[in-house]
């Protein structure tokens, strides 16, 4: 074998603390090394060209590049050697940046360590074999999990491009948080007017199948061929019969149910259609509030339903679907603000959340668009907005900025003035974060034109005194304690990943951060991809963002999914396990440890043997490590290859 070694300087990233020329010179003494050099930027075009030229000039049959992490550039260099006519697996990478130059300052020690890592790579490469991927057909269907604005955008873009789309939404209607908003910043246009038509498009699109009031139960398979089990939750209404006439909701006698869609601003009935523009516009029964379920006596909805759609005996239903790619768009929820006992912890009715206030402002909300104090129904005159309730607050475990509260609070202050012209709005803020297009102008407008009184400071305490709420705060610019006698207090409650997000991440086999937000493949360069092939992200599930950004990400995720599913065949990764049948004793240990169910038992002339299902194997190597016979080997990471690396390191 004729091996070429290239030691990358990465500018001063590596060369700053590693003597690259010395490493290259040491490498010349390693077995089978026919050529070795250092190089300024191996990944840049001149660098890649130099590698190709060296392969041709020195008749190299394998290449080692010592540079950064393989996660960054292994695919780059594999393509480089391929262009020079080598098999892409006749390449090895030594990470002398993240593992050496960035973590130590001692040049001599770093240089020695880098040389050792190169020796390991050379030793492994000597045992590398050419591997050829197999190709498999792709299921040209996309699953979108979550029917908020991000998911809707992703679904419509993909469906318009001709892809079949399945949308799964947990709630009885799509629309997500945006459907609850009255107006949107910075244009103050009506939220449901712009979202409504998109929701209708989802319902009517021939390429989209919508499963509302449903959840993803389980996912198996792999990129191009995922098997998804969808749980359609029992709504106790046969939606094929329900016409959405609403007669049941009018007659339902349980009128004290918690109104999830309206954030509990007013009570609702046990059988509900969440809001007039709901998609699908179908009724469902909230079991915990239903008299029929709780007392066994009622049946009013069944009696009045003109189509006989009510079915108290309905069970959850499961649907199996095959998809090629998945977009997760599960959005966010508000954090549990009742930990703030100093703001009443939920005991004071006139302290409401920003989302509750949206429902009060909305003409289709429970107050018909009139701002009323929950305690006595009176119109408030002094409205205090408190920002960062559960954002940028280490003491409640929420150190991050929720990103959109500054803007929606400004919008709510404007709407308050529009609704009640003689009202006064007070906004307690720490910093105004408004970097979007037209955003900062908007926050100026609310202060200059709408006379909202912005107070730079936090609020220590809110408590009721007579009919008023006393808000005890600080104006840090004035350096003074301030008090406001308020009629209504609106808390800009911080957001967190949607309930159940980590659970879904585990089903999708994607990672999530400590707050439950899904991890993107790269924070800058792969913002909508994950490290699991075929799974993409859109909207606030990846990190909090406002509507424009969520929509942009929805489109981006659709584009990524389309790029994947536009192909008829995908190459399988040849770095998978295979069984040496002569050595296999059929002990089944590999079958037990395989997390992907990729190994099955076969019968070979009366002997039980293991067999790898190539398309399912993910190449994790658990079976390889478990097999007592060494019969099952992971290609490109065989026992011999790993031992060669170890031996190269421990030579004494």
């Amino acid at each position, binding site marked *: 074998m004729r091996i070429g070694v290239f030691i990358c300087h990465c500018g001063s990233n590596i060369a700053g603390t590693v003597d690259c020329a010395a490493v290259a010179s040491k490498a010349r003494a390693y077995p089978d090394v026919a050529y070795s050099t250092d190089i300024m930027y191996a990944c840049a075009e001149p660098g890649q060209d130099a590698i190709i030229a060296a392969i041709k000039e020195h008749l190299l049959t394998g290449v080692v590049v010592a540079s950064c992490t393989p996660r960054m550039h292994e695919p780059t260099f594999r393509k480089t050697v391929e262009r020079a006519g080598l098999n892409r697996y006749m390449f090895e990478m030594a990470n002398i940046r993240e593992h050496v130059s960035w973590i130590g300052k001692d040049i001599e020690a770093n240089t020695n360590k880098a040389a050792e890592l190169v020796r390991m790579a050379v030793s492994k490469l000597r045992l590398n074999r050419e591997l050829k991927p197999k190709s498999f057909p792709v299921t040209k269907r996309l699953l979108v999990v979550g029917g908020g604005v991000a998911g809707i955008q992703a679904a419509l873009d993909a469906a318009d491009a001709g892809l079949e789309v399945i949308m799964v939404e947990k709630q009885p209607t799509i629309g997500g948080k945006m459907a609850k908003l009255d107006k949107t910043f910075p244009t103050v246009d009506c939220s449901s007017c712009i979202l409504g038509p998109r929701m209708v498009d989802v319902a009517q699109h021939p390429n989209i199948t919508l499963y509302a009031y449903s959840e993803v139960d389980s996912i198996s398979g792999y990129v191009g061929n995922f098997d998804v089990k969808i749980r359609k939750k029992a709504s106790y209404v046969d939606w094929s019969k329900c016409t959405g006439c609403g007669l049941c909701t009018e007659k339902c006698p349980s009128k004290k149910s918690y109104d999830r869609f309206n954030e509990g601003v007013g009570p609702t009935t046990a059988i509900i259609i969440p809001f007039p523009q709901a998609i699908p516009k179908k009724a469902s029964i909230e079991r915990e509030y239903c008299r029929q379920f709780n007392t066994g006596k009622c049946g009013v909805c069944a009696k009045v339903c003109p189509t006989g759609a009510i079915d108290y005996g309905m069970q959850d239903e499961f649907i199996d679907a095959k998809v090629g790619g998945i977009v997760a768009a599960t959005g966010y929820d508000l954090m549990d603000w009742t930990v703030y006992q*100093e703001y009443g912890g939920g005991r004071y009715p006139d302290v409401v959340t920003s989302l509750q206030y949206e429902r009060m402002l909305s003409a289709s909300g429970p107050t018909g668009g009139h701002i009323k104090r929950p305690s006595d129904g009176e119109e408030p005159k002094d409205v205090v907005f408190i920002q*960062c309730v559960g954002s*940028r*607050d*280490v*003491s*409640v475990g929420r150190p991050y900025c929720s990103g959109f509260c500054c803007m929606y609070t400004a919008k709510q202050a404007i709407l308050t003035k529009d609704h009640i012209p003689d009202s006064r709005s007070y906004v307690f803020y*720490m910093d105004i974060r408004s970097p979007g297009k037209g955003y900062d102008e908007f926050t100026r407008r609310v202060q200059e034109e709408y006379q909202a009184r912005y107070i*730079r*400071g*936090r*609020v*220590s*305490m809110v408590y009721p005194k007579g009919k008023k709420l006393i808000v*005890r*705060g*600080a*104006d*840090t610019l004035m*350096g*003074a*304690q*301030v008090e406001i006698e308020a009629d209504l207090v609106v808390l800009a409650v911080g957001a967190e990943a949607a309930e159940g997000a980590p659970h879904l991440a585990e089903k999708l086999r994607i990672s999530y951060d400590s707050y439950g937000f899904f991890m993107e493949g790269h924070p800058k360069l792969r913002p909508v991809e994950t490290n699991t092939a075929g799974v993409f992200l859109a909207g606030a599930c990846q990190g909090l963002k406002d509507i424009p950004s969520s929509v942009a990400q929805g489109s981006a995720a659709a584009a990524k999914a389309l790029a994947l599913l536009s192909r008829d065949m995908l190459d399988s990764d040849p770095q998978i396990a295979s069984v040496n049948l002569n050595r296999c004793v059929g002990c089944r240990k590999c079958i037990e440890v395989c997390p992907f169910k990729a190994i099955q038992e076969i019968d070979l002339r009366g002997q039980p043997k293991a067999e790898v299902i190539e398309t399912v194997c993910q190449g994790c190597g658990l079976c390889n490590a478990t097999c007592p016979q060494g019969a099952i080997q992971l290609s490109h990471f065989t026992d011999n290859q790993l031992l060669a690396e170890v031996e190269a390191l421990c030579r004494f």
Partner: protein
Amino acid sequence: METVLLNGRDDAFIRAVEESSGQVVSRCYQCGNCTAGCPMSFAYDYSVSQVMRLIQAGQKDAVLSSKAIWLCAACNTCSQRCPNEINVAGVMDACRQMARREKKFAVRAMRAFVDAFLDSVKFNGRSHEVGIMALYMLYTGRVWTDVELAPKVLPKGKMPLLPHRIKGRSEVAAIIDRYKQGLSDPELARARLAKDAGEESGKGKEAVS
């Protein structure tokens, strides 16, 4: 107001406050929650968050000669509600103790009250309200402080004119005297701990041999 030269930040002062209070003052992002909830804010020259800011800026003189550090009621509202979990009351404590060491008493009545209280404890082993009031009036010259309360308590036997003296009052006096002599100095204690540790290990060696 004077221009503050920020290059002149007194880092040793910041370190001293941090060490004494066990808090990291750079964690404060000046939200003002401490000021918002402080019951004594009305009497301060600098608000609590301004005191925190002055510490961050290393403005030792301004902090140690402020009234605020003396008027803090130690109610812990600021510490309880600080979003960055800073024990703000502990920082105020540390500054007050530092000011006392440097003989800076921006609120003389506070010093007089504390001295009167500790003198009473030193004489009797326990605090004696009538005695404290007498000493306080003596130290401040505010002769009529709270005398209107006397008719409410004296007839009920709630303010004995004579103190309850304890047998071990000399022990208590000794504690206060030793403190005033500087015997609780951390360096002395550190040295003694090191010496004890040395003796311990010495003993260990002997036992082995």
